[in-house]
């Protein structure tokens, strides 16, 4: 016993920490809703011009928009996750304290970030999505199994998102100022996750490439599961493979970084 409980406590801590900012959460809900409103109209115009674009009908495209707004902060696609804090701890050297803690660095931050993501999903995601579903024509499954599969895909998306951002944060061990890297990473994930535009709308080879990259696990994959556009098991396999690969890469980089700290004397 012990370790499982420890990480659960860390996750609960991550959840609680974000739950205290009520006004900020309300403000976020409002902003996500406004952006959703603007994007819905542009998507409707696009699908008006080309019905069945990317295999979606209009209702599916609208659903996709609200899903994106609901998952934007959950998956920290444009920043707002743990990475800034970890980079700051690396920069100031406080990370040495984390390394001496009787817990695994990667799992520690993963647990905290999952707690945060879960709060963002409930606190910031549900309301804009509900608003969109009430005001516009959306395509939602009636089958609880699809909803369950969707939630699994979201969870896997959270892990993949963490895996990428963990690598980004660890770059601070080698780079003096990691903010540039973090910003580039956010832009990249905005573009490649499907937040900018559904990946199945991307033309030709570009579309094939972005759909194979890990970022597509974040928004595109859960969306396609919910919209019935993808086979859940195949999607889980794709997401899981990327999650494992990224977490393993994170471990490798982490051990290299740790050696560096030890050599430098902390």
């Amino acid at each position, binding site marked *: 016993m012990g370790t499982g409980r420890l990480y659960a406590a860390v996750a609960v801590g991550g959840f609680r920490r974000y739950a205290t*900012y*009520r*006004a*900020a959460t*309300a*403000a*976020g809900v*409002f*902003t996500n809703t*406004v*952006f959703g*409103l*603007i994007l819905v*109209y*542009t998507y*409707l*115009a*696009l699908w008006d*011009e*080309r019905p069945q*674009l990317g295999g979606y009908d209009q209702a599916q495209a609208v659903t996709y928009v609200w899903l994106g707004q609901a998952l934007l902060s959950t998956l920290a696609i444009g920043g707002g996750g743990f990475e800034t804090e970890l980079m700051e701890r690396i920069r100031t050297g406080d990370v040495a304290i984390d390394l001496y803690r009787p817990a695994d660095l990667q799992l520690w931050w993963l647990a905290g970030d999952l707690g945060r993501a879960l709060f963002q999903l409930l606190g910031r995601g549900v309301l804009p999505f509900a608003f969109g579903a009430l005001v516009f024509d959306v395509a939602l499954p009636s089958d609880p199994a699809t909803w369950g599969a969707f939630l699994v895909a979201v969870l896997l998306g959270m892990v993949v998102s963490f895996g990428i951002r963990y690598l980004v944060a660890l770059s601070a061990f080698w780079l003096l*100022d990691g903010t*540039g890297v973090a*910003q*580039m990473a956010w*832009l990249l994930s*905005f*573009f490649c996750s499907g937040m*900018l*535009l559904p990946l199945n*709308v*991307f*033309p030709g080879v570009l579309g094939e490439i972005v759909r194979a990259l890990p970022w597509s696990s974040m928004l595109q994959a859960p969306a396609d599961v919910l919209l019935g556009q993808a086979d859940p098991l195949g999607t889980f396999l794709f997401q899981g493979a990327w999650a494992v690969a990224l977490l393993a890469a994170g471990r490798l980089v982490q051990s290299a970084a740790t050696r560096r700290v030890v050599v430098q004397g902390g």
Partner: protein
Amino acid sequence: MGDIGHVGQTGRVADGLRAYRLIVAMWIKSTMAYRASFVMTTVGNFAATALDFVAILLMFSRVDALGGYTLPEIAFLYGLSGVAFGLADLAIGSMDRLGRRVRDGTLDTLLVRPVPVLAQVAADRFGLRRLGRVAQGALVLGYALATLDIDWTPQKVLLMPVMLLSGAAIFCAVFVAGAAFQFVAQDASEVQNAFTYGGTTLLQYPPTVFGKELVRGVTFVLPLAFVNWLPASYILGRPYPLDLPQWVAFTPPLVAVACCALAGLAWRAGLKTYRSTGS
């Protein structure tokens, strides 16, 4: 003590502008001390802004028109919205930090200085890197002007700079009003994003794309339509979704002045609340 009349008011505006200039000059000087970092952040700013346009390009890889507008026409709207918003963001974009200043109490340090608080807050952390956004908007606008076949008249030529400056002023008013709101709700700085970043995103697309209610809202309630939709419709010779007379295209300066006046009042009310509640 009876000197808080008209002379005092214009004096305060002059004082404010002078203080704004002084503080901005200092930030520019300090930015230039780290030139490499300035170039990097400006490029980052450019890239982040350009993403919106990439989305539009991706859309046009699959369609030929959106809401009846062609790519150069949308680029025209996009460029106007980008430059106007970029100028406002460059000038007073740091105002969304006001809530934080109220929370940590550093607003008090601005209140004991002999210049208007608004000028100090507006100039605080002046970020020259935001030129990246202006440059990106200008580039797209240049592309639009080069590819569009506009039937130029002297009025249309004159309307271009007038529209850009009025648009920037309207967005400045939104920034100030948003900051004033943060006197009341200190943690709600993100609400402002809905109107600033959300506003500029909205204006990047043609009005024909949006629902009539939304278009009415941004024409008559929060008059963002005067930034580019109305004057650009005139320049492009396209009908505006709402039935408005043509001279409305020339009213952006008036709308800008009205917006700035209202935002100024909101700011005063906010500051007054702060000074009576201290939080």
